[in-house]
């Protein structure tokens, strides 16, 4: 981590201690929220602000630009910092540096930038530094089609960075939920001290809907907690198995070492197999021991469903419309939608597979969600899987899914 970054963010953090008057101002601006027309990207920006995000470093890219645009205007007003970086490599590093200095840091990008951020994302996971990366997906590979929709980063968000590290990835399907899951992403990053990824679809990022945001008093915000030990006893990577696990920031009088190398509890590089195993198991357990807290799913008309659609993000909107149409014709169809796609909701999918005969998996890629369903369907070989895959930049219309529902019944 470049020294200058940490220094800057450190200064920022000191200035950023909210004075009472500032707080009042902030609350006033949030008072009596009305139903307004809001874009997905706007909802992400407001969610970030409501969750206490006070640092953004990024490089604007369609279709995520509005997030940077709004935060560039809003963060300085609230004592936060906005930095337009030279590229996405710098962006993710600045975000990690700011977080180590105590900021709630977020960045937003799209496919090409997300690829560049992968190394930094691994660094954040290894060093257990809370931060959030928003990836508003567009058509790829490479620069692809900037203004068109695809769901090509589903597996990348899980496996994009090298090394074996678990991921938390959230995936909203509406403008309102973009707001809610941004807050949740920041909360989870603080709670589990990791890099949380929020995936959006281009259509959702640009789509406007009537939304009423909750009043500030009803927004639940989680922030990292401070350990109670004296400085000489502080271990930055101590395995407490409690979440949020306490952590100090740079500049608070507690010393710790941060490295991308495999490290011991104090943060110093280690080659000892037992310490390496300990670190890796800590990273994994954070996720696997807290599956219930992390996984969120929506069941739509699933109670008596015999045919289920499994879809995420904007495709779930098509699926919901299709399920509603099928129900009108008396077909027992339902929708299972993961709001958390990583860790993958294995248990919910297994339960679904036990109860239905056919599963339809529509997605805007050439088979990414379906891999997970195929992995789980092995337990029940008589379940029929139907794929709908589209990569021509257009959404899957409800009628296409309805047709497959009818074929599958």
């Amino acid at each position, binding site marked *: 981590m470049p020294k200058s970054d940490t220094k800057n963010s450190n200064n920022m953090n000191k200035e950023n201690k909210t004075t009472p008057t500032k707080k009042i101002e902030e609350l006033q601006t949030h008072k009596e929220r009305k*139903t*307004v*027309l809001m874009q997905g990207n706007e909802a992400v920006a407001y969610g970030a602000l409501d969750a206490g995000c006070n640092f953004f470093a990024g490089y604007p890219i*369609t279709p995520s630009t509005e997030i940077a645009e709004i935060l560039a205007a809003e963060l300085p007003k609230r004592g936060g910092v906005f930095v337009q970086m030279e590229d996405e490599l710098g962006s993710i590093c600045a975000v990690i540096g700011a977080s180590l200095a105590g900021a709630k840091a977020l960045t937003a990008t799209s496919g090409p930038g997300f690829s560049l951020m992968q190394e930094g994302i691994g660094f954040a996971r290894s060093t257990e530094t809370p931060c959030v990366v928003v990836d508003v997906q567009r058509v790829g590979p490479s620069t692809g089609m*900037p*203004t*068109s929709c695809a769901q090509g980063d589903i597996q990348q968000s899980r496996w994009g960075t090298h090394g074996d590290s678990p991921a938390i990835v959230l995936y909203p399907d509406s403008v309102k939920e973009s707001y809610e899951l941004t807050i949740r992403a920041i909360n989870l990053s603080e709670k589990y001290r990791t890099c949380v990824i929020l995936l959006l679809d281009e*259509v959702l990022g*640009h*789509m*406007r*809907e*009537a939304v009423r945001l909750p009043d500030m008093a009803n927004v639940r915000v989680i922030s990292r907690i401070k350990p109670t030990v004296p400085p000489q006893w502080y271990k930055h990577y101590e395995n407490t198995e409690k979440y949020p696990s306490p952590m100090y920031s740079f500049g608070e009088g507690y010393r710790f070492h941060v490295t991308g190398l495999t490290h011991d509890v104090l943060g110093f590089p280690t080659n000892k197999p037992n310490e390496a195993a300990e670190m890796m198991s800590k990273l994994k357990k954070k996720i696997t021991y807290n599956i219930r807290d992390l996984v969120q799913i929506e069941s739509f008309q699933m109670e008596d469903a015999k045919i289920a659609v499994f879809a995420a993000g*904007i495709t779930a*909107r*098509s699926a*919901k*419309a299709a399920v*509603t149409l099928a129900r009108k014709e008396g077909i027992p169809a339902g929708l299972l939608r993961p709001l958390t796609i990583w860790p993958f909701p294995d248990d919910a999918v297994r339960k679904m597979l036990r109860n239905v005969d056919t599963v339809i998996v529509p997605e805007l890629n050439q088979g990414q969600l379906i891999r997970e369903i195929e992995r789980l369907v092995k337990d029940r070989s008589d379940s029929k899987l139907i794929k709908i895959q589209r990569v021509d930049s257009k*959404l899957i*219309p*409800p*009628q296409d899914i309805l047709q497959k529902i009818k074929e599958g019944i």
Partner: protein
Amino acid sequence: MKYPYEIRLSGSGGQGLILAGIVLARAAVLENHYVTQTQSYGPESRGGYSYADVIISDEEIYFPEAVSFDCLLALNQESCDKYLFDLRENGILIVDTSFVENIAAVVENTYEVPFTEIAIEKLGSPIPTNIMALGFLVKVTGIVKTASLQKSIEESVKPAFVDLNINAMKLGMELAKNYGK
């Protein structure tokens, strides 16, 4: 009004269709409807294709894009050709005859208005054509109230351009009276 009501505003990039979509959607929000507004456009800021979809409903809208339109506004020939056949039966077609010369199918409720020419003549610029056409559309379809549309324009455009756009809206509504059916 039959809900969900699906509208596509189409033309080329730079004609202000997305702004028109936002203005219409915001007007519907002011009337407490469920609304989604989506758009599709090329990477160019001028030229290329561009359209904005607005769906207005009295219940939750799942699929956010317009599939079969209750109303189609086409401000150029290409978009008229491309989307005409997705117009619902009894749907309303509004075309800008400044750019649309042929309509590929006979549609019962067709309004042919030289919006851009009128904008240049009456408002001195082609720029407010989008809001003028929107005023026309709102008057013809009755999808939102005039007052809501006016308030939405005031909230959506820069203060310096509010008067120009309100005038454009009123002009569009006046025109609709002449085309009354």
